[in-house]
């Protein structure tokens, strides 16, 4: 923001206060995660005695060793990764194709389809009718439930469409003169140009899929189909945690792990991919939100 170079004397305390406030906010934001990180690298039995706030007192990798040797946990991670990757890729294709089609004013039925979509953003059938539907079409206790339910979002269509409107028509026209059909234009021109939007949407849906635990709770009966977040949920919110731990290979014989330290390690292992990924994609999703602010 351009402004005069003169700094008025009375502004300095204002600046200092703001910087202090920001530092406090940063600390409050980071500390809970730091606390968990520290505890995950500390011996569980030692941590249970309390008093560990800044650094591990008895550093140990045993928590992580335990969880990565457990088959239930490994299976749950596999489900999370598979579901996130497959659903996100499928989502991007289905949603961007739809947005591309809808961005053409000459599309047959465009107004009706737009109207249909907008209605879905304000009104929905609710949890129970959706549950009944999912059960009746055979997606209950089925991995594909994750994929099918996450396949499309009209909100993302809007984001794609506002991006597509900035692509000059001339690109498409010259391609069509060269004999390309609509699908060719989509694959060879639109997709490569849309990488920023795709990065944004991929981040949103990826994170959404990675962090979701509820679908695993209501739609999956088999433990093998539940993602790591659902596993954590059952560990934390349902008090079956002790039983679950005893069933782990080796149990808790002479190791220093406690149910608490296992929880901490699992939490960190689950969050690390996302925490590492999002700073790099920051400029994309900030732009994406901006599109929403300006156009929406």
């Amino acid at each position, binding site marked *: 923001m351009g402004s005069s170079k003169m700094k008025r004397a009375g502004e300095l305390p204002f600046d200092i206060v703001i910087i202090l406030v920001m530092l406090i906010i*940063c600390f409050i934001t980071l500390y809970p995660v730091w606390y968990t990180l520290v505890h995950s690298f500390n011996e569980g039995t030692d941590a249970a005695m309390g008093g560990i706030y800044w650094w591990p007192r008895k550093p140990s990798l045993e928590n992580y060793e335990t969880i990565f040797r457990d088959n239930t946990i490994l299976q749950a991670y596999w489900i999370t990764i598979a579901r996130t990757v497959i659903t996100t890729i499928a989502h991007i294709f289905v949603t961007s194709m739809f947005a591309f089609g809808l961005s053409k004013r000459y599309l047959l039925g465009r107004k009706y389809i737009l109207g249909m979509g907008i209605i879905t953003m304000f009104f929905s059938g609710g949890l129970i009718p959706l549950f009944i539907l999912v059960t009746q079409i055979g997606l209950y206790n089925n991995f594909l439930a994750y994929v099918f339910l996450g396949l499309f979002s009209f909100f993302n269509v809007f984001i794609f469409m506002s991006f597509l409107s900035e692509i000059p028509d001339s690109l498409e026209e010259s391609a069509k003169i060269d004999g390309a059909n609509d699908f060719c234009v989509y694959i060879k021109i639109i997709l490569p140009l849309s990488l920023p939007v795709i990065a944004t949407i991929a981040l949103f849906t990826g994170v959404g899929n990675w962090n979701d635990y509820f679908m695993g709770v209501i739609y999956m009966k088999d433990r093998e189909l539940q993602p790591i977040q659902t596993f954590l949920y059952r560990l934390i919110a349902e008090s079956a945690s002790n039983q679950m731990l005893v069933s782990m290979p080796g149990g808790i014989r002479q190791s220093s792990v406690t149910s608490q330290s296992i929880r901490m390690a699992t939490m960190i292992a689950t969050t690390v991919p996302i925490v590492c990924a999002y700073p790099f994609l920051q400029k994309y999703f900030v732009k994406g939100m901006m599109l929403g602010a300006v156009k929406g």
Partner: protein
Amino acid sequence: MQLNDLFTKTENGMDTMKNDILKRKLLMRKLMQQKYLLLMILPGLLWMLIFNYIPMYGISVAFRTYKITDTLFCAPWNWKLAGLTYFRQFFSDAQFMAVIRNTLGINVLRLLIGFPLPILFALLLNELKNARFKKIVQTVSYLPHFLSWVILGGIMITWLSESGFINDLLIKLGIQDKGVPFLAKREPVYFWSIAIISDVWKSLGWNSIIYLAAITSIDPSLYESATIDGAGRIQKMLYITVPCIQGTIAILFVLAVGGLMTSNFDQIMVLRNSLNRPASEVLDIFIYRMGITSQRFSYATAAGLFRSGVALFFLIAAEFVLRKIRGTSTI
């Protein structure tokens, strides 16, 4: 004359027929021209029909007695109509008042506290002079948004337990002399504050993005002329920045009011337990319990329809009120 009329009538008839054939040919031609486009919108369209519109049809379950063995598509004449029975059951349920109170209590307070804070944060962030520091603060502030509620809830359950971190801190500071199991209390003040504070913590940075985006689109010359007029930083904030982004604020406010019946499901599912139920049982959780856990489908669907209906009403009412106040529509 009559013969002439006959003649014109037949001609008109031929014309209309020709028109129809022409129209259909045009339609077919358009269809063939756009065939790839139409194929491309097909998956999304099918998805909306199946996963958005069939459940809307499924709302009919609220008006009939439904067993899990029935199909959704079972013909209307096979329905065991129940009219408003389930709605009446819902409104006269012993827990109805408590559920509504919890839902609105948490959501309204969260609106009052949590709506202005991201705006304030964006305003302050905008005042930071050092671009690098600003970027770092922003990046850090987005972190909680990317944590799942299971993780956050896990941390909170540990911290809020009787021997947990928060109690440690409060005892050391002398504010209390023994541990209080905050999540085990049934009085609303405990659970509600925990839910609201943690929700604000999680969404502050993320929600400020859209306000920051709006702020960057403000014309800088406005600030320059204000400086010339001798305006201070706070004055510039109050008289330039805030009024310029009031459109964004208005839209988000209307949407927030529309969401007053919607609870943060993921959060409450994790933080709730049988001890804090009197304070934590919100409408969405109640619907989940009745519908999925207790399998009372018709009852839960009726409650869900009530919820969606009231939410829509709030949305429309908020837009109406704001339109009257501001003189322009929010959309």
